[in-house]
């Protein structure tokens, strides 16, 4: 019989020294937090998604993702919902590629078919009302398409169903992108403290398209 290697020392690697020594070593909390920040990025590589992202990075598309036309539609809608201002827009952080990855690698086949059919329904709705698909429309006309779809109270029939799913993905993809989390939201990974009653002063919102969203 062999002694298994995985006994205690290997298991409790966080304490290469003994517990008692660890207790004596009073690390400055500040230093600890600094060290944590540096070690924050850990490699996470689920195979298929990593391969899909690698294809996107090389300018290639996920194997079963959106068609070129669907991707253009997604990007046009995303750009209308979250345009570039003094901060990046949806297109600047490649929200289209994120939607493509989710549809390709995360959705099941039935979901994917239903989603892509829904994208076609959004485009058909635009064509029925203005003669051209979303991609061919000027920005203000794209806004009119969105307003018309959002005005419908039933969010479960097409094209509303897919539109709201898409909007959810666009918002999620935008705000979880590295650039937006770091530069716009300035997310602190390790805040170090908590307050349940901190001051907050929103900047005044600019007037213009979509201002009704404050209702």
């Amino acid at each position, binding site marked *: *019989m*062999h*002694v*298994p290697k*995985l*006994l*205690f020392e290997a*298991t*409790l*690697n*966080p*304490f290469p020294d003994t517990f008692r020594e660890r207790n004596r070593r009073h690390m400055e*909390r500040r230093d*600890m937090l600094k060290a*944590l920040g540096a*070690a*924050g*990025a*850990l490699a*996470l590589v689920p195979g*298929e*998604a*990593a391969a899909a*992202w690698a294809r996107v990075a090389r300018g290639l598309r996920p194997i079963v993702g959106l068609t070129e036309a669907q991707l253009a539609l997604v990007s046009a809608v995303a750009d*209308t*919902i*979250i*345009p570039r201002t003094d*901060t990046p827009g949806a297109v600047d952080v490649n929200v289209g590629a994120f939607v493509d*990855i989710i549809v390709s690698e*995360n959705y099941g086949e039935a979901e994917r078919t239903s989603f892509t059919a829904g994208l076609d329904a959004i485009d058909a709705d635009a064509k029925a009302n203005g003669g051209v698909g979303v991609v061919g429309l000027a920005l203000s006309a794209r806004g009119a398409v*969105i307003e018309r779809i959002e005005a419908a109270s039933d969010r479960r029939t097409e094209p509303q169903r897919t539109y709201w799913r898409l909007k959810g*993905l666009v*918002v999620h*993809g935008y*705000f*979880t*992108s*590295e650039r937006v*989390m770091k530069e716009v*939201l300035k997310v*602190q*990974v390790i*805040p*170090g*403290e*908590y*307050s349940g*009653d*901190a*001051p*907050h002063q*929103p*900047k005044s*919102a600019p007037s*213009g*398209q*979509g201002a009704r*969203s*404050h209702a």
Partner: protein
Amino acid sequence: MREITDFDAIVIGSGISGGWAAKELTERGLKTLVLEAGGPVDPQTDYVEHVQPWQMPFRGMGDRKKIVADYPIQRECYACDEVGHKFFVKDKENPYTTPDDAPFRFFRGRQVGGRSITWGRQVYRWSDLDFEANAKDGHGNDWPIRYQDLAPWYSHVERFIGICGAKEGLSQLPDGEFLPAMPMTVVEQDARPKILKAFSGERVMTIGRAAILTKNHNGRLACHYCGPCERGCITHSYFTSLGSTLPAAQASGRLTLRPHSVVAEVLYDPTTTRARGVRVVDSNTMQDIEFTARVVFLCASTIESVRLLLNSRSSAFPEGLANSSGLLGRYVMDHHYGSGASGAVRGFTDRRTTGRRPNGIYIARFRNVKSQHPDFLRGYGMQGGSGRGGWGRGGSMPGYGPAFKQSLIEDLGPWSLSASGWGETLPHADNRITLDPTVKDKWGVPAAHIDVRWRDNEKAMDKDMQTAMAEMLDAAGCSDIRQHGSNNPPGHCIHEMGGARMSKTRETGVLNGNNQAWDVMNLFVTDGACMASCACQNPSITYMAITARAAKYAVDAMKRNEL
């Protein structure tokens, strides 16, 4: 070199209960072997709490193909996410069965640290309202212990692990040895006195009591409020056995921890009428190994411990070890939870939270404390919190363009306040674990067959959780109050308890008042399986206190040569 196979004590399981057994037994002088079915965890490389969404290929939405394939059941637990699923078992390797009409969710983590890595960290003492409940209303059997038996052990545990909370002086929710409380949000601070006033002081909303450090404690650092505790904590700021009790046991010099050790049965010696040791399947080699000891502590988690005893058959115990009562596997409980209400809070738009508080608010049990509710027995506590939507509200919010974007970045959205109930389930003989006659796990151990159902008392309580919470939100001045009912099946709360209950007599249970098997004196079960009722409080702190108490009893009995 041959592996040592004889010890003073064997502890089965390295989680919340097993870690405490290891600490107490080693510190009291026993050479102790801790057997863990899963593999080792290295916090430096395995913990993932600081991984940001943009570092995840699916931005936190999960690698669904993989998760559906490997974790079809586990994925229903909120903590089994894109980065946290590593702390859950693969369902195919760990099957269990249920009747078709009685779904049960069995969420498991097999690794050093067990489910203490992913647990919810809420810690509430029980009171005599709980320990006396079975005797008073006749459901289940009378507990052999009362609050005064456990109170010093609660203190012992709390002082070591560090828990934060606010003292409230409530008889039904005794105060503990608290580190400073985490702050309430401005909205919670506003709601508390309004709810107190509206309900004559009977409904007390307090800050959650949590096994999270609000200041440095016992060599561990205070919380840095990064948020997702369930993914691990590199500073060990919340309690895990891996970061707290196991290192203490290691420091004694008397601990041997053996991962990849699936215990298949407890071995019984009919000549001594004691447990001789255990048979382990080494999950790396798939070979059987026997380990022997003078005393065995079973801390494998409720269902696993019951399953293991049921699978430990001999001519003396053909229906499972320590089962002369025939009650092994019966009276299984879980908390029914999730029904409640939410509301919108007007105002406070110039206030926000900073940092991510890994804790919420708690409303102490108020039903059937002073007077009897007409519709149900026992009671529930409520857990919830308040916050602003932030950008997350954008996916369902109308609007587009610069103003929409600006609003999501700057406005944070309105405050909301919500809470849901965690309810006591009555002990019922037919809520039962047996062994599946054919299905086995990857290591050849028969799977558990779990038949646990909610019954009328639970359903009536679920309704009251919704209306009572809606009333409280109304009293707090909320608008747009919405009630929500829960469809969570048993097991979903991961507070499974019972199956090897403690009792005053050997005919009415499996364990005596010291968690010692009535039939096998050197066998102790100190995890959730020992519970004779389930109260409404999150149970882990009670397992810890019961385990520490039983360990002292066992060592003292050994010194008296009784074991």
